[in-house]
């Protein structure tokens, strides 16, 4: 398994200097940097190529994360919006191809955060599946894995459990369309987290890790059972990325979207945030050993 962190850990808004963060990932002993996929459309072809070269040079893999805005909702009952959303995610995949990023992850089947105005789950499910089939073919052609994120009930209504995601992804029926399970969301919705992981099995394409309150995974009382989670991942032969998605500071659009209402970082400065990320990844490497 390869270990990494979502760059948003260090930022207040959903954008950042990815050159800086690829270097930081290297300094902290990580294998992967996860970036905001939408931001890639703002980088020129040259910048994407340079970032690709830098990441190869430093041996850092890149995964791309997105919760699409409502105007890009591929499950919308407005066909124009669906078309626009599919084009948006396919354009992102084209940029990812230049960048050399092979994982597109997030709420790709809907929009985020959800506003719970349209509550027709079946309609959104079916339309989303059709859109994912179309996008899946684009992903297949580029060698990119689309990993659909299962999220808690407050953030979307279509995929809240591994069981639902497995059914969904089987309907899409494309080898490049898989599942992303996130321990924060699983801790709310699943009966048992290791069982959810086992249920996803070979369809699990990406993993997000974080404590129940979205702090970095740690060892000790009050933490999730990381060893049981590691055992489940090894049992299903999962060998892809494990990305920490911590949200611990207040202020800015990220805190608003993630609903962080109190500081969870211990008033950390950048150096402290860095050390915490390094320590957490090292802990997980140990806890997830086969």
């Amino acid at each position, binding site marked *: 398994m390869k270990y990494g962190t979502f760059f948003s850990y260090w930022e207040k808004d959903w954008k950042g200097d990815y050159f800086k963060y690829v270097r930081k990932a290297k300094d902290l002993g990580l294998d992967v940097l996860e970036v905001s996929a939408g931001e890639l459309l703002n980088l020129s072809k040259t910048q994407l190529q340079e970032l690709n070269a830098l990441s190869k040079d430093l041996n850092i893999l890149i995964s791309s994360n997105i919760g699409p805005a409502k105007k890009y909702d591929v499950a919308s009952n407005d066909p124009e919006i669906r078309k626009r959303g599919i084009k948006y995610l396919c354009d992102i995949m084209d940029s990812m191809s230049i960048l050399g990023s092979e994982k597109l992850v997030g709420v790709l089947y809907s929009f985020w*955060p959800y506003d*719970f105005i349209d*509550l027709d*789950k079946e309609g959104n499910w079916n339309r989303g599946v059709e859109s994912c089939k179309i996008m899946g073919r684009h992903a297949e052609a580029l060698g990119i894995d689309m990993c659909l994120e299962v999220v*808690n*009930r*407050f*953030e979307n*209504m*279509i995929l*809240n*459990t591994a069981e*639902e995601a497995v059914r969904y992804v089987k309907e899409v029926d494309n080898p490049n369309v898989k599942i992303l399970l996130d321990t924060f969301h699983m*801790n*709310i*919705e*699943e*009966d*048992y987290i290791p069982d959810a992981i086992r249920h996803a099995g070979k369809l699990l394409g990406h993993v997000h890790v974080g*404590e*129940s*309150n979205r*702090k970095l995974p740690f060892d000790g*009382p*009050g*933490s999730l059972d990381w060893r049981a989670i590691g055992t489940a991942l090894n049992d299903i032969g999962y060998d892809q990325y494990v990305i920490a998605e911590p949200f611990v500071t207040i202020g800015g659009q990220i805190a*608003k979207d*993630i*609903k*962080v*209402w*109190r500081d969870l970082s211990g008033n950390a400065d950048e150096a402290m945030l860095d050390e915490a990320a390094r320590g957490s990844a090292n802990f997980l490497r140990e806890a997830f050993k086969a």
Partner: protein
Amino acid sequence: MKYGVYFTYWVNDYVEQFVDFIPRANKCGLDILEVGAFDFYKQNDEYFRQMRAVAQDNGIILTAGYGPSRSNNIGSADSSVVRHATEFYRETFRKMQIADIHSIGGALYSYWPIDANEDFDKEADFHRSVKGMKVLADMAADYDVTLNMEALNRFEGYLINVAAEAVKYVKAVDKPNVKVMLDTFHMNIEEESLIDAIRTAGSYLGHFHVGEANRCPPKSGRMPWAEIGQALKDIHYDGNVVMEPFVRMGGQVGKDIRVWRDLSNNADDAILDNNLTESVQFLRKTFG
């Protein structure tokens, strides 16, 4: 400790009549039925006398829950809302006393559920809310009512998400009938350690809601029930323990609680009642 259930286990709408649930709670082996106080202000006094009589006949204690509408936000920056809220609560407490209901819990310090598109000023809202709650507390005392401040997860509230924040608030209000309320569903998201959270609340804990992580009735899920029971004993909590399960989709409740899949295993009413009966037996055994 006494054990109960919130009425929304059985219905997915904010009903007007609770008396039918009283004998049902009794049949399931419960001590308490928790009702919703959202409509109390508009019912006539006879309604509450009837509720009291039925509860007495069935040996059931009544408690109340309430998630305030925006127009009843005691911490609002709009003074006309605060006035409206104060009158709403005054009438609600008066009627609670008629029904022999002495505890009301929820996000009484704010409104529910929050609209996260709003820009919250947490510090200013905290101070305004504390000020308003002191007034509500004195009113509630006239009617022999305790107010329980519930810590909620981040998606449903912003002012009080953890026991430590609830204790800070309750200390600031500084009234004997304003206490902390914890709920295992919310704690499972926001607290690092449920046990530490319970200990933090300590003697301020006035009400306790229980449920599994995904809001199924307590039993064989992954909430650390034995440790929770021990923590409640350690702080000498001898109050009410109310289950708040949400397992069916549909209705306004299904929308508010965000239930997007059936968690009842297609249970009919008989199975629902059976599960509840087993849950309370499990809690009595585990909490001692």
